[in-house]
């Protein structure tokens, strides 16, 4: 007995922020250059009263238009923008979605590696006989962590949610995982205040970086160069290890989907690993970097555009905040 992904849907908030709007707001930057280099024309931004939980609910409801929600016996929600410190958002979603009460539900906090880890947990729950049909939700609203004058991060991140159902199948279609963690990088992508280590402060001083972006310790900080160094030093080896673990070579893979960080990084990684352009997804023009939702959003888009189809072998790779990374191969 194995596992497979049987449904993938996503939801993006209605409000958008275009690169041209960013250019108008921060006159020193070029919207055209943003589109050309980062590959992002617009990002979807959650409304003031719209949270990651709300987005996840909408993504899940799309699935339940075609799948019986009473079959769900475990709910996993990956988010770093929970409604409350407690209770866990997954419990609230159980009620909002009208799921059975005899099911497991929990949140886990990861960023851009979240979908990969969620898949590994869902596979483990099913293999262990704990669940049969896992609803995996990945949803984040990083816009709420970013200072309104932090142009650099506003340009990159977009809000969004994705939902997938992982279920039992007669053979395995979610293959072996390779995972990795290195907490030495935790300070390079962080919201320093707001947790128990350092409470958020109303009088937190503003800091301006060399590019003119402003933030406080209550907001997200990303050391872009260090994240890039981590990515280019870790991901090529990760891909090799995923292929090796699954007794495969790149020639056995129909399509490759990495976490959609930004087009520049993706294109550099693709060239470094000599992955053919025609089997590598690089498109965040209409979403921006949607953190843990980016891989399932890409999967849905690839299915809709018939870039991949039933039976396709797809290499998935996630990487980011933590540092945390991982990947696997799935068959659709």
């Amino acid at each position: 007995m194995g596992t497979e992904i049987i449904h993938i849907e996503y939801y993006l908030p209605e409000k958008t922020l275009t690169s041209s709007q960013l250019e108008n707001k921060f006159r020193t930057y070029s919207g055209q250059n943003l589109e050309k280099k980062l590959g992002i024309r617009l990002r979807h931004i959650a409304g003031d009263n719209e949270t990651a939980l709300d987005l996840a609910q909408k993504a899940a409801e799309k699935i339940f238009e075609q799948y019986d929600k009473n079959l769900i016996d475990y709910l996993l929600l990956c988010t770093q923008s929970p409604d409350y410190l407690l209770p866990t958002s997954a419990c609230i979603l159980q009620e909002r979605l009208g799921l059975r009460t005899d099911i497991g539900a929990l949140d886990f906090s990861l960023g851009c590696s979240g979908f990969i880890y969620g898949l590994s947990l869902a596979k483990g729950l099913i293999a262990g006989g704990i669940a049969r049909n896992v609803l995996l939700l990945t949803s984040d609203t990083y816009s709420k962590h970013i200072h309104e004058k932090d142009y650099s991060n506003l340009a990159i991140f977009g809000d969004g949610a994705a939902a997938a159902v992982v279920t039992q199948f007669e053979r395995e279609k979610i293959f072996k995982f390779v995972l990795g963690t290195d907490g030495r990088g935790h300070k390079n992508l962080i919201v320093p205040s707001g947790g128990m280590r350092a409470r958020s402060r109303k009088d937190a001083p503003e800091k301006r970086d060399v590019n003119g972006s402003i933030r406080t310790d209550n907001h997200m900080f990303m050391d872009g160069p260090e994240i890039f160094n981590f990515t280019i030093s870790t991901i090529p080896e990760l891909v090799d290890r995923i292929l090796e673990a699954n007794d495969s070579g790149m020639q056995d893979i129909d399509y490759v989907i990495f976490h959609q960080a930004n087009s520049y990084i993706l294109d550099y990684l693709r060239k470094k690993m000599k992955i053919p352009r025609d089997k590598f997804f690089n498109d965040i023009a209409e979403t921006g970097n949607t953190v843990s939702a980016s891989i399932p959003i890409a999967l849905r888009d690839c299915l809709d555009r018939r870039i991949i189809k039933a039976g396709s072998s797809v290499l998935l790779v996630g990487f980011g905040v933590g540092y945390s990374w991982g990947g696997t191969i799935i068959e659709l």
Partner: protein
Amino acid sequence: MKKQEFIERLTDDLELEAGALNHEESMLKGLFTSLGVLIIIALCDEYFSKEITAENIKSITTVKSLMEMIGMENFHD
């Protein structure tokens, strides 16, 4: 790599006007946007397998100082 080739590649990758960097003493400080920093990191990784940190980049002043950071043994006339 030939020093001149490096300067031309740097000019190209940073999308500077032709001739903006015309010799080793040309100033780089102030030319780096946040994306420009990534471009320098990528260039050093791709051609020299050299990791340049954000801290390293802060200390770069001229083309020559970047070349010294990469290692002058990697360049010739």
